[in-house]
């Protein structure tokens, strides 16, 4: 049987019922959401099932939505079934005060550094990760730079003295 988005959705709903929701298909890729406590169960099912076989973790990252109380951080997984060549994406949301999400390292060795990177940038605490420490930033850093509360400098601001930055001229 051909592995279509509808079929994957049907199989997921048979197995998990209402625990998988918000199905969408942006640009053809099946996208859905599950509770953060379920991420491993869903992934294990997708990995083990003889038809679904999503055994390749393409990508893992996070997104910060500061305006969604209780669901500020989204962890996004991109999975790939290499046999049937189908990709899916699923997300789990977590509150920023307690950003605990189960690690996927037991299923995919590749999740190790991807999760370290996500922790480093967003502060998602991957529970059970063998070595959850910063990877691209220094260990002493005490904040998570990709969160939206750390904006880049506004290029249009005029309260700086450009002379101090070697650009000549002064606002005075």
């Amino acid at each position: 049987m051909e592995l279509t988005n509808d079929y994957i959705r049907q199989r997921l709903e048979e197995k998990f019922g209402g625990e998988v929701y918000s199905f969408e298909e942006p640009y053809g890729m099946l996208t859905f959401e599950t509770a953060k406590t379920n991420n491993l169960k869903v992934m294990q099912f997708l990995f083990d099932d003889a038809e679904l076989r999503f055994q390749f973790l393409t990508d893992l990252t996070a997104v910060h939505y500061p305006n969604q109380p209780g669901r500020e951080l989204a962890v996004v997984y991109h999975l790939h079934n290499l046999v049937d060549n189908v990709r899916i994406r699923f997300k789990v949301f977590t509150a920023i005060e307690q950003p605990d999400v189960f690690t996927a390292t037991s299923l995919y060795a590749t999740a190790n550094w991807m999760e370290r990177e996500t922790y480093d940038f967003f502060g998602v605490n991957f529970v059970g990760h063998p070595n959850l420490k910063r990877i691209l930033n220094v260990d002493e850093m005490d904040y998570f730079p990709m969160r939206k509360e750390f904006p880049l400098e506004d290029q249009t601001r005029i309260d700086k003295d450009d002379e101090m930055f070697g650009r000549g001229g002064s606002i005075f």
Partner: protein
Amino acid sequence: MQEQQHNIKLPDGSIERQTTTLNLGPTHPATHGVFQNILEMDGERIVSAESTVGYIHRAFEKLAERRPLYQITPLTDRLNYCSSPINNMGWHMTCEKLMGVQTPKRVDYLRVIIMELARTADHIICNSVIGVDTGALSVFLYVMQYREQIYEIYEEICGSRLTTNIGRIGGFERNFNATVWTKLEKFLHEFPKALKEFETLLMRNRIFMDRTIGAGPISAERALNYGFTGPNLRASGVDYDVRIHSPYSSYQDFNFNIPVGTTGDVYDRWLVRNQEMWESLEIIKQAYQKIQEFKGEEAEVYHANVPEYYLPKKEDVYTKMEALIWHFKIIMGETAIPAGEVYHSVEGANGELGFYMISDGGRSPYRLHFRRPCFIYYQAYEELVKGSMLADAVAVMSSLNLIAGEMDA
């Protein structure tokens, strides 16, 4: 040797049980960047390894959250700078996917030519550097002139060589001129001979074979679990190639093979890359042939008709008010990006290069994430070198095609 050891007054425990900590990198020429590897050595044998990526700190994912699309292209240049046109094209195609821009066939073929040239340039460097790291410098010097020829082609198209910033959303900035085609023909004529010689110098070279066969092998299953893609995965025997499995930019119109290895060791990775260069040449030839077949107006098309995203011609910008306004609006991101969520991947020279973009309809992406193949498979390094000799660690590292710029985020 044994006697000498007995004469030395050692701490408790025999010498066999003692291990030494050795720092391989971050400033050794063989570490290809700022990677540090803390190796625990038992004599010359590696007992365990711990890798550190190093801190380049360019923060391009963060920068992208503030920049309009065209200002993000230079950031992609600096991912894998050995084949920056592939990154550029991948990025532009991601934008096109989000905006629903259809590119004309001729543009696709032109892109294929550039991407395959970039892949060849990247493989030239990687494969010849494996030679350098295993003691053969002359092959490296010999093939560099062909990378130079490729760079000259880029230069003719866009004016720059390494970080090319080549192309536009919808196509190219200008049509390929006659010099480009002359240079391409010259390359197609001269490179196969050099590649053959390059192969002859290394492929059956006893020293090279001894240094690489059996070094750092990885099974297909393990490679998949580690998220390997590109030549590194194919060397283990998995024929996964984004160009075939999720064709983009009309790759479905070309006939080419996917070379695969068996054991996934350094030698196999080298062979796969070398074979890929032959395949790339085939693709370029086919694309060149197809481009010749366009007649009349079609033969001059080099971009899609999308004035709201495609930058106007430079001479128009200097002379026409309307064009100047459009140029300004596009560069400053006044034309908003449609809201949406998109993942697009291309077969980069070293693996699947993915772009994951979320747009909320503003002038810059809300979030942009790059799937950087190097970053993903460098983590397997610890496993690959465990139990092997120190000299193998160097060969394994160069065979993975690690690019420091791509590790960063």
